[in-house]
């Protein structure tokens, strides 16, 4: 097997002589991929994951953390193999287009845009909430959160508009600081910096307040520890060597998160009574408050702000890439498929998604937004299972060049499907109406696409990979 390098600028078969083309800029390295993946997700450690403790108790929270970690290890393995081969902006969207078909791709594109835009809205809401809390601690009651929520979305959209390298370098720095903050908190507590000792007696006295059902129920928010790590492959068209960088960045990301998630559970469960933890808005910040150490409080405040910013930033990046790719293929109006001539970003998609994010950030309750985001993510993971099986079937190993081949196929896919099914059940416990309403939405949207929108799509142009004909077609 050989890979021939052709100098960029050499004529491209079939496209020569058509004049100038605008492309996204290929400037990112593995570090940026790590920052994009972990940056989106790390906020899950700073808020949201602890609802899993509320849904099932401390032990259930830890089991959900590890089960979800297993789910995401499968996701990362599967995703790395497919992405290292299908390296195009839009990530899973482009995968679905080449492996399953156009309608699936449209749905996957919607999952991505919904999951990321909702997560972005949730982040903006959290920043408003945290500033309100701090203003309250300083004696200013009733802070108007709206300008800060809007500013968060607007500033990050502007950063994204101006170019991907600056955006993700910014992300790399603030993600690293937020991650270090968790490590420092853990080490400081181990060294006895806390005024109140770690206390785990609830693990033995009241291990499973809801019984075994609680563990499954906790899985719903257990996903929140890692949700969005698969976003790494959105940047495929802007990474310098996607076949190498994407698997490395994604795998390093999932390891970082497994460590951070376990440390977070340990420190928070030890320092905060589980009943409080289960409904806390900013658990790591609260843990720092319990230690009674002002430097730790400041550190974790900064960590919370940075992790939410990094997450919202990555979400804008990913949602706009997915929206842009759908526009480029005319799944959505072609107007969105534009690249900025100077900054080389999908600028129209970025601007368009700003008001959408604001509708959700200002108009909907947080748990609705979070559940919508989790459900869209979950549908995306379900898609990955049969996508992987079809990928290996249509192009068996050896027929095309894969940057990475994951071991034990099809075990990860089966495991992923099993955990996904359990999570659907977990969402049903309490959020069944959202689930049903969302399924209706995706079914309606699918019919709309198949019977109306698809007529504007060029058929053969959708398949862009230099692969042989798939087996069986």
């Amino acid at each position, binding site marked *: 097997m050989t890979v021939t390098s052709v100098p960029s600028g050499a004529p491209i078969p079939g496209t020569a002589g058509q004049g100038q*083309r605008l492309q996204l800029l290929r400037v990112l390295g593995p570090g940026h991929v790590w920052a994009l993946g972990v940056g989106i997700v790390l906020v899950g450690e700073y808020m949201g994951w602890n609802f899993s403790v509320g849904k099932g108790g401390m032990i259930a929270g830890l089991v959900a953390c590890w089960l979800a970690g297993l789910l995401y290890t499968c996701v990362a393995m599967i995703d790395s193999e497919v992405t290292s081969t299908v390296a195009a902006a839009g990530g899973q969207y482009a995968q679905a287009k080449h492996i399953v078909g156009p309608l699936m791709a449209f749905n996957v594109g919607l999952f991505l845009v919904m999951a990321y835009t909702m997560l972005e809205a949730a982040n903006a809401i959290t920043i408003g909430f945290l500033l309100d809390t701090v203003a309250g601690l300083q004696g200013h009651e009733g802070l108007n959160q709206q300008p800060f929520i809007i500013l968060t979305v607007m500033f990050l959209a502007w950063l994204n508009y101006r170019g991907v390298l600056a955006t993700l370098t910014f992300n790399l720095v603030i993600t690293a600081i937020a991650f270090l903050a968790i490590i420092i908190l853990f080490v400081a507590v181990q060294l006895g910096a806390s005024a109140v000792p770690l206390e785990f007696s609830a693990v033995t006295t009241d291990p499973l307040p809801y019984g075994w059902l609680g563990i499954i129920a906790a899985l719903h928010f257990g996903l929140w520890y890692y949700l969005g790590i698969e976003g790494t492959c959105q940047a495929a068209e802007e990474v310098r060597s996607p076949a190498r960088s994407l698997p490395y960045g994604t795998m390093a990301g999932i390891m970082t998160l497994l460590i951070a998630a376990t440390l977070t559970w340990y420190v928070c469960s030890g320092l905060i009574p589980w009943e409080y933890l289960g409904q806390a808005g900013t658990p790591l910040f609260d843990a720092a408050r319990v230690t009674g150490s002002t430097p730790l409080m400041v550190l974790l405040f900064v960590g919370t702000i940075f992790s939410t910013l990094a997450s919202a930033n990555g979400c804008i990046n990913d949602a706009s890439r997915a929206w842009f790719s759908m526009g480029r293929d005319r799944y959505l109006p072609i107007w969105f498929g534009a*690249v900025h001539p100077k900054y080389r970003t999908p600028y129209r998609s970025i601007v368009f998604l700003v008001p959408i994010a604001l509708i959700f950030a200002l108009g909907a309750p947080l748990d609705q937004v979070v559940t919508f985001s989790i459900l869209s993510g979950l549908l995306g993971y379900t898609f990955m299972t049969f996508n992987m099986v079809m990928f290996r079937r249509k192009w068996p190993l050896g027929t095309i060049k894969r940057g990475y081949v994951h071991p034990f196929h099809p075990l990860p896919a089966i495991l992923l499907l099993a955990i996904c099914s359990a999570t659907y059940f977990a969402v049903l416990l309490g959020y069944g109406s959202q689930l049903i309403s969302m399924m209706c939405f995706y079914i309606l949207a699918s019919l709309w696409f198949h019977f109306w929108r698809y007529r504007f799509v060029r058929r053969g142009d959708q398949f862009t990979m230099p692969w042989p004909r798939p087996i069986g077609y």
Partner: protein
Amino acid sequence: MDFWNYLEYAAWVLIVLFGGHMLIDLARVDSTYDNDLLTSSREGEIERTQELHKL
């Protein structure tokens, strides 16, 4: 009026600046360049210029 009130006003000003810059730039780019050029990006094209998949 305290510190937090000023912060609110500062936030509103920044919103107008960032949002305004994006909108003005978008309008300027859209009126300067041909739409066909702006939407000329093709998926995977750059792949073929860098790596040719061969067995």
